[in-house]
């Protein structure tokens, strides 16, 4: 059993020199015990017996990839890193292309180790925070950092290159680094108490941290993945996180509320221009394939400050040609019912769930076809915009298509009819049948009954906002 002593935990050169001699002498990995400094790693290793190896052995080469891997992996805090690297080295002499087998267990294990080291190096560059303290002839920037691996010396060049004109010190439990503007010096390890308490600029930084955060888009998991809690204790801004999280939902609700209640442009002023621009944009809509065979987009119409909005299914043959909603046969039934219910159509905003006419050509006629869920989904965007602009207190959905569009899910008319419902985005809603259903009823008595029920629905819905 040979004992090899590496003077410092991150000393790559010492490991390389020892490993080169051992490998040249073909010493099997099981025969070597590696230890750092004067801390024994093996109770049974006995006396320190780094006895001289026989004569200078012939030199041998290793792939570049191995050296790169070893340089990182040696910084790991895993005690077996020296032994694993030596095992890989001996295997490399037999299998020179082993480094290219990325799926090999040992290569993989060491890759993982090196990856953890590289991540720690990166996080030290990211999360280390300097605090300014007074010193003779100016100031010094002092940081306290607790790395996971033996990376401090390897990381020194980065801080020298970046902060060469400052005087700074980095304190860690293992060692400390000091830069005076010209030379880097190493000192013994330190404790947190050795580092300064605070820095007035941290308050300014915290102000920035709190302001740049958008409470409307909380993604705590994404934050924790990249900034795990173990780093938090040395980062001043993280003290704010619990408070920001707790306040986020309230702040978002407030953002929406203030805008909803005290909108700067009251209904009817800039909303009219916005509605016209929206209609113009809708005329060129290609969100679903229905635009191709249809004549034109049939957008909603009516006063922009209407208290009530009525949503139908889709334009029919006559609406498609006229470009206006509810002018065909079903529209006439609708008008008759509105008159019977004593609701003034000119004071209601009327629109359709789907804005293009879907049909199947049969001979010279275009036969109405029911829009699919895909088409309803594609067109929901427009309904959403119309609702946001008009902000009606009551929205009437006529038929299953309109109900699906407003609620985003299938609604059973018979079950939901006859009472006030809540829309997902606020406001009241009422579900009833589509007037074309009344046209299709063959039995005259039943048609009259159903018409009366439809009128009753319209009247009840109008009463809610009256």
């Amino acid at each position, binding site marked *: 059993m040979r004992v090899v002593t590496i003077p410092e935990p991150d000393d790559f050169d010492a490991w390389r020199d020892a490993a080169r001699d051992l490998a040249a002498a073909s010493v099997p990995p099981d025969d070597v015990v590696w230890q750092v400094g004067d801390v024994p790693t093996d109770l049974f290793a006995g006396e320190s017996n780094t006895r001289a190896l026989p004569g200078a052995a012939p030199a041998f080469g290793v792939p570049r990839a191995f050296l790169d891997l070893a340089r990182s992996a040696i910084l790991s805090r895993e005690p077996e890193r020296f032994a694993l690297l030596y095992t890989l080295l001996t295997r490399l002499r037999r299998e020179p292309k082993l480094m290219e087998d990325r799926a090999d267990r040992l290569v993989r294990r060491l890759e993982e180790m090196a990856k953890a080291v590289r991540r720690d190096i990166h996080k030290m560059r990211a999360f280390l925070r300097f605090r300014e303290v007074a010193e003779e002839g100016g100031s010094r920037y002092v940081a306290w950092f607790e790395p996971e691996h033996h990376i401090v010396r390897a990381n020194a060049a*980065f801080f020298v290159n*970046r902060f060469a004109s400052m005087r700074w010190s980095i304190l860690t439990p293992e060692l400390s680094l000091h830069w005076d503007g010209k030379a880097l010096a190493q000192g013994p390890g330190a404790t947190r108490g050795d580092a300064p308490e605070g820095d007035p600029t*941290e308050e300014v930084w915290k102000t920035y941290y709190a302001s740049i955060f958008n409470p409307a888009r909380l993604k705590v998991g994404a934050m924790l993945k990249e900034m795990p809690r173990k780093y938090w204790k040395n980062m001043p801004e993280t003290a704010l996180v619990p408070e920001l999280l707790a306040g986020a939902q309230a702040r978002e609700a407030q953002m929406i509320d203030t805008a909803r209640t005290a909108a700067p442009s009251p209904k009817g002023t800039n909303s009219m221009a916005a509605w016209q621009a929206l209609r113009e944009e809708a005329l060129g809509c290609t969100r679903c394939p229905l635009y191709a065979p249809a004549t034109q987009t049939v957008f909603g119409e009516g006063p922009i400050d209407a208290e009530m909005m009525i949503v139908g299914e889709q334009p029919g043959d006559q609406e498609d040609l006229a470009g206006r909603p509810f002018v065909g046969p079903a529209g006439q039934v609708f008008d008759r019912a509105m008159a019977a219910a004593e609701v003034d159509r000119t004071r209601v905003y009327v629109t359709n769930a789907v804005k293009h006419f879907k049909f199947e050509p049969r001979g010279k006629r275009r036969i109405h076809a029911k829009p699919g869920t*895909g088409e309803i989904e594609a067109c929901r965007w427009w309904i959403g915009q119309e609702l946001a602009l008009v902000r009606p207190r009551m929205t009437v959905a006529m038929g299953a298509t309109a109900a699906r569009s407003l609620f985003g899910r299938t609604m059973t008319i018979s079950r939901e009819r006859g009472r006030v419902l809540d829309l997902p985005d606020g406001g009241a809603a009422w579900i009833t049948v589509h007037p074309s259903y009344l046209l299709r009823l063959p039995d005259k008595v039943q048609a009259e009954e159903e018409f009366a029920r439809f009128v009753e629905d319209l009247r009840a819905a109008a009463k809610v906002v009256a």
Partner: protein
Amino acid sequence: MTGATFAQVLSVPAPGPARPFTHVTSPGITGLSNLVRLAPGTYIERMAQLDTREKLAILADAAKYDASCASSGTAKRNSADGKGIGSTEGMGICHAYAPDGRCISLLKILLTNSCIFDCHYCINRKSSNVRRARFTADEVVELTLAFYRRNYIEGLFLSSGIIRSPDYTMEQLVEVARSLREDHHFRGYIHLKTIPDADPELVRLAGVHADRVSINVELPTAGGLKRLAPEKDGARIEGAMADVKASIADSRDATRKYKSAPRFAPAGQSTQMIVGADAATDGDIVKRASTLYDRFGLRRVYYSAFSPIPDASAVLPLRRPPLMREHRLYQSDWLMRFYDYRPDEVVAAADPSTGMLPLDIDPKLAWALRFRDRFPIDINRAPREMLLRVPGLGVKAVNAILTSRRWRRLRLDDVARLTVSVTKIRPFIVAEDWRPVMLTDRADLKPLVTPKREQLELFAA
């Protein structure tokens, strides 16, 4: 050695009288520290301190709707010569993460949030009644340096509302960058947002000082831009992007001939689109992004889910921002940039009737499920471009498979070691000891590979 006090520690390299720590009270540190080091307690100083922080709160709050915080891909610099401060490496560093999951790499602020434009999606538009504030160029410079010295940031991302005129605003932005670079020899990262109508000479100066310049196209469709940003002109925005592209190309040519030729925006240009404020479908957005990449040689297109803003215009809906949609668009962007998908292939992953990418699964998996006939793929034989199509195999895993399989035939547990989750990949691959006969032909493959939805806790602490 852990018992040593800092004074002892410090005395190792520089022997001298040990002194207890005190906060900076010495003169000679300028700017921001000026405000805080004056005798505490007096009314005026406290006001001054409040003032900088208050302005910072307003102007950072106003800047948070810009998604970009990248500080990668610029020329390598350092300040080892002892003059000035700062360095850049190939890869940027995120110095903190906010609870919205976004990286904080740069000090991202507006010079002012006053604006003569009235874009409806923007919190700073003329008709909004948010509080207004304005930094001077010097204040921004001091703030940047103070943050940089403490290792809070990689650099500065400066944008601005338009005041007086586009040229005047652009001059102010350029002055901040010039002062940082020339007066303070700042070698960190600078990202300047350019104002579309500004004089081309000012835009050129911006590129000379900054690592990256950007102009936002704002909305994916021309109709949307017309409706929501009536004063902005899509053609002029694209004209400015074309100018920047030409300047970048010129400077590349020049540096090839003369090493000392001035660099122009070495980290290239980027842009941003708002998602969910106009009628564009995912298909439209993907196609628009790919033409932007092709025509203007952009480094990045950012997507920003439209989020409710305080004091929003009545023109826009107030909803929760479509974060998952934004995420899927970024994933589709990745497929085009790193996985060799053509834009029409990404669009093929979307639902044909709505043009929207599925929200429950990622676009790569959606594509694979739509084109089941292309799978399974033999891990030991398939070319690189087909391996990249396997859902769950990333670029790194594919590279590792390609080098490893030169030496032996890979088995399923070899693949497992190279990837995060082999369960997701299994139905799509053939390995030495694995053939997914039953899996690939199952009609109900989708539920097997779709990530499980987590039931959220109703009364979570």
